[in-house]
């Protein structure tokens, strides 16, 4: 057994774990953090993506199936369960996924949201092509990615505080085509619960 001492979603945990235990298994089986899921066994699907900050580093997206729990010793992990504020206010990326119907079954969603959070930290105003490349490590079988790209574009606009960014970012509007509903930037004061009366002209 090996000792680990790490912070996950703001709580410090100290444990004895088998050295071969994967970080995702530690999260799910030892900490009960079942929000992070396992979708494959070759590091391809990205459903297990979490943010990890090594003791001396900044947070980056990692596939928690490709990391041992012991490798996270001394570090800080943020899972999808740690994205919303303490009062339940959703992270802009979470809110955008909801607003733009960027999920269907929801299995890839935790990893996809975390990967998108990381993408926007590195590239606050990505084009649709950059979003597609940046999320190419996260597989989704349900959505065809169209609404995910719209959601991340909208989250970028909301985070940058430039509501017009999504419209003036020419490639975003053009790539969406004339027949599709254009994403509207979500309001800054969006409530925790889904806004029941918001709708997009189809």
């Amino acid at each position, binding site marked *: 057994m090996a000792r680990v001492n790490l912070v996950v979603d703001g709580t410090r945990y100290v444990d004895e774990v088998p050295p071969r235990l994967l970080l995702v298994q530690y999260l799910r089986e030892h900490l009960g953090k079942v929000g992070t899921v396992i979708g494959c066994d070759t590091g391809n699907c990205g459903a297990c993506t979490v943010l990890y900050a090594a003791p001396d580093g900044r947070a980056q997206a990692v596939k928690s199936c490709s990391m041992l729990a012991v490798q996270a010793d001394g570090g800080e992990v943020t899972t999808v369960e740690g994205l919303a504020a303490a009062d339940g206010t959703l992270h802009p990326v979470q809110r955008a996924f909801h607003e733009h119907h960027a999920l269907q079954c929801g299995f*890839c969603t935790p990893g996809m949201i975390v990967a998108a959070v990381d993408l926007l930290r590195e590239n606050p105003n990505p084009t649709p092509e950059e979003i597609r490349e940046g999320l190419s490590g996260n597989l989704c079988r349900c959505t065809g990615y169209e609404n995910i790209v719209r959601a991340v574009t909208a989250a970028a606009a909301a985070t940058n505080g430039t509501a017009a960014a999504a419209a003036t970012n020419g490639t975003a509007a053009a790539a969406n085509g004339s027949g599709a509903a254009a994403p509207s930037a979500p309001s800054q004061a969006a409530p925790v619960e889904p806004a029941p009366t918001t709708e997009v002209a189809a």
Partner: protein
Amino acid sequence: MTTVAEPEIGRARRRKEDHRLITGQTRWTDNITLPGMLHLAILRSPYAHARITRIDVSAARTQPNVVAAFTGADLDNQGTLACAWPVTEDMVAPTYLPMAVDEVRHVGEPVAVVVARDKASAVDALEAIEVEYEPLPVVLDMEAALQPGSPLVHASAGTNKCYHWVFDSAEAGTGGSVADAEAEVTIRRRYVQQRLIPAFMEPRSVIVDPSGGEWTVYSATQIPHIVRFLLAATTGTPEHKIRVIAPDVGGGFGGKLAVTPEEWIAFAVSTKVGRPVKYTETRSESLLSAHHGRDVIQDITLTARRDGTVTGLHVKLIANMGAYLGIVTPGVPLLGAFMYNAIYKIPAYRFECTGVFTNTAKTDAYRGAGRPEATYAIERVMDELAAELNLDPIEVRRRNWIRHEEFPYTTVAGLVYDSGNYEAATEKALALFGYNELRAEQAARRAAGDPVQLGIGISTYTEMCGLAPSRTLGALRYGAGGWESVSIRVLPTGKVEVISGSTPHGQGHDTAWSQIVADQLGVPFEDVTVLHGDTRVAVKGMDTYGSRSLAVGGVAMVQAAERVREKARRVAAHLLECSADDLEWRDGAFRVKGNPDQAKTIPEIALAVFAAHDLPDGVEPSLDAEATYDPSAFSYPHGTHLCAVEVDTETGRVTIRKYVCVDDVGKVINPLIVEGQIHGGVAQGIAQALYEEAVYDESGNLVTGSFAEYLLPSAADLPSIVADRTETPATTHPLGVKGVGEAGTIAATPAVVNAVVDALRPRGVTDIPMPLTPERVWRAANGGDAGAGQNAGGAA
């Protein structure tokens, strides 16, 4: 008094399901832990065909943390796995044991199971199991399997032929004979629907809890009701002692429309050990042993006149069953049998299908189940006909399709299409696509000899979904019916519970059903909750597949709501001291005609009914109602998909420049959900065209056994999809809706392949086998044999 401001139907409501999904509070089966629960690991055959000559699990039983280990012979209570669709009287239906006893017939077939305190200990203990196999000859090729002298997958059957099924329009009286059809032009093509893997993102998981003299089965399944019924029927366990719960399920696409060896093994093992047991598959296990899709050889003969009118269509299929029959395995090609004639007025049609066993994983339903295969074949040969006659491919379709004013239309396959408007969908798609501009660009690139050529592909489709009229299922010899059931309960505080027999796995039923019932009962959208997936709660249902939950379940829902309103009306009249005829249902309440402020809402009536202090004579104290609806017809959505591709003739790389689709799914309840289904369906259709293929090597090993080899596309591999709609309501039921879940997949594959072939046709290319890998495209473009390209998985 609340009045609902605007109708819910048609609103782009954001989903109720989302909050738990985006915050990591989803209730996947694998999340569930029960007191005393043990974990299973399954040992699987490494051989495609072998006799088990010795198997000894005794060493595994003494490994650390191991509670038990069983062979197939030990599980004398394992029952069998049923095929619910014996398509012909003489169909070969081999005994299918969940865990093999004497013989294994495909790589991955379970041969032993270990039960341990934790999953890792169970997996470790597998290595202590001793198995000796005597390898038997393997047959993998369908045509070889049908030859006399071929190795037999099931020796007792004496043949690898599972069944032979024919539909002939002359024999059926629905059309002429293909043999007599005018044949000024004959197009003969062979197409191969490559084997695909549904590859839902959530690996399958099952927990069986045998405590209290009952069995509670949690399973990531699309079909809890069918699983319950078949567990009872095949294991002898009393049905009322079995409860099956599908918690949140992470995608299915037909791949979880299954009764699985793993469910049955877990059921048997839990009884043996008397404790809850859990089995969650790895992705490698899933790709290997969860059922596969498609895998059909199609020989198509189309006859026509020189003016482009089609005179006859003859379809011959060889369909790979795999080694065993899953719940609907043999029937999947038959679901496509009635769709090869598609949107066209073809006067003579003959369809023949031979099902064949091979030493591979079984095939079964995968998004579209028979209809993508049919649409692919007809849409490809229509393009071939256009090329042969030097006609525009859209014009050829126009000359043959059913015109809007001709609906309802009885096809040569004997189906009655209720409604459709192929003209409107096509016009809209062409305008969105910029068809003329793209054709001009194509011509320019051809003239310039540009190494990157442009191709345009079209797919005009209809499909038959909303499975299904039970009488038709019976006539096709399917074992179950096609009805759906919904109960509605109005609680004393006016909240509403909708108990739905459907079992969603991403389709947004909680949201769409709330919209329908909110409109029907005049209650706020937020006040409706939808219950499903638990056979003790949603007692009656036929579950979710075949794009049926709205087209069939939605109608049951509306019927149940009408029955609630009828009960409520009598109470309202009594409370308002008028006759029931003096009331009209308007703006979410029963209102006295001419005096609309004299009104009672459903919630007000529900409270009065709960107290029951003053009900009219003969009225029971309950507003609750149930309806079970058996559809009178299939549902026929349709659409036009257009795809523009750039083909780099120097590298073989295909890039989709533009993808436009206009789909008609009748009346739309929630446009966001409809559009999302189209996006996801199209993505899977594109993936069949360009990326995916399940490949076995010559020994029957699955080469594409992980996501590193089986190529699910990422966001970087797919284009932006421009989706729009027309709306031609269904006429066979009051709701006007049509199914949408599979339509995108059915349409997309031929649109993409037609586009690539169109790009390369001046070079003499008439076909490229799927998936259109860069190597295959490059070989075709450069005068080589496209079929000589390696399989996508890399094996020769």
